């Protein structure tokens, strides 16, 4: 990748200063590092999705019933739906700060392939807002009396599924980043797209707690992850170009 970038810059004597020769990988790393640093300095952004996740999960016993049997039945779905909502809520700060301070434009202007830059932003966003939710999920599953057999499945399906949610969500964020009020419209656009992940993830956890084999569920989630890893950043990149233009 870096070779082609060099070739084009040297073959076009436009009289500009030569573009700094940065390999795609180091640009990827730099973007990732920058985003992680920014996020780590804003502790609230780190905590809010977790708190939201915790609050939504604890609404289910209050709204449905405190009966352990009843809760056991809905635990898988409740945790998954809450994780979905938490990831939706945290999406808003994926591109917004960068859009507002203009660094997103610099990213779009950079000679690096946008796919990898968007991917780096996605990964750092998931590490900040997705991974903590995954790690907290067993505790919340315990609060909802999820059978112990299903804990690993819950963590693993969330580990496979929440990146897909982030990747799909990024498309929606990229499309709406320039809009004034985007909270609701983002949810309206993105939530229907996340239906397959929710179905497969929640079903896997429910099946695991019943003792049903769930190899196929993992395979389907993995397929969704592979598909969205390869295609979603392309769509997000295209959407960013449309929005920032």
């Amino acid at each position, binding site marked *: 990748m870096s070779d082609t970038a060099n070739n084009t810059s040297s073959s076009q004597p436009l009289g500009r200063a030569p573009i700094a020769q940065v390999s795609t990988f180091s640009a990827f790393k730099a973007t990732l590092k920058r985003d992680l640093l920014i996020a780590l300095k804003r502790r609230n952004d780190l905590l809010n999705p977790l708190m939201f996740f915790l609050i939504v999960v604890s609404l289910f016993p209050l709204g449905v019933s405190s009966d352990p049997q009843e809760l056991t039945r809905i635990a898988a779905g409740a945790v998954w739906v809450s994780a979905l909502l938490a990831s939706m809520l945290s999406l808003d700060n994926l591109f917004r700060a960068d859009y507002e301070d203009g660094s997103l434009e610099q990213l779009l202007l950079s000679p690096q392939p946008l796919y990898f830059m968007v991917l780096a932003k996605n990964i750092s966003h998931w590490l900040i807002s997705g991974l903590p939710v995954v790690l907290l999920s067993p505790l919340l599953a315990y609060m909802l009396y999820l059978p112990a057999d299903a804990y690993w499945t819950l963590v693993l399906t969330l580990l496979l599924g929440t990146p897909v949610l982030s990747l799909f969500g990024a498309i929606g964020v990229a*499309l709406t980043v320039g809009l004034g009020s985007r909270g609701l419209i983002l949810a309206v656009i993105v939530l*229907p797209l996340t239906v397959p992940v929710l179905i497969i993830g929640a079903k896997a956890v429910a099946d695991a707690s019943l003792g049903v084999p769930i190899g196929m569920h993992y395979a389907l989630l993995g397929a969704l992850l592979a598909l969205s890893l390869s295609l979603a950043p392309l769509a997000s990149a295209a959407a960013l170009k*449309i929005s920032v233009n």
Partner: protein
Amino acid sequence: MWQWFFRLGSPKWFYEMSGKWLPWLLVLMTVLMSVGIFWALLFVPQDYQQGDTIRIMYVHVPVASISLACFPLMAVAGVITLVWKMKLADMVAKCAAPIGAWFTAVALATGAIWGQPIWGTWWAWDARLTSMLIQFFLLIGVIALRSAIESPDAAAKACALLAIVGAINVPIIKYSVEWWNTLHQPASDFSMDENSAFGPEIWVPLVIMIFAVYLFFVISLILSTRNEILQRERRSQWVMDIVANEKV
């Protein structure tokens, strides 16, 4: 070779041509629709199990099938918008979204009316109903995005992209919902399209109705696109000429 394609993309050409086609399409649709409706409502024999309820099928099946075509249509228009920057494709996509949403809603509503006497419930989380509902949500999303973005150019591109993403997702959603549902409950004979069991006196009016409803969709789309053309091209000379002539 591509000339016809780009000529098709000219709003003015489309406006003139569709003006010529419209009367014929309207006549054809009226004939087909009245034949189909009367045949279906008055002359089709009652189903031995469903009685007169079977007649809902003659509205439901055509409407549902055309609403399924809406997302692919918008995605194709989206590709044309993004690749060739053809304004007409975006106008069609813009007009197709609300019409498609209405058709999806009608399909859901007629399904519910049919479901009440036959299944004993207005709503079931059946695979088809669910994926139809989610398609409705996706269309609402496209419409919401369109109305949220002020610049028409950016809205066109953004909606084109969303339609393409949605169209890739529709089959995934459909299969995941089917998979979810079949594991949830044993397969039930909820499906309506067991054409093989029906004789020609049942399916011939259905085919007529399908053509009639398709035409209805096309005509609605053309009418709505013509409006959109007039509105967007209101500053161009040919639209001013039309308006000036109509006032005389």
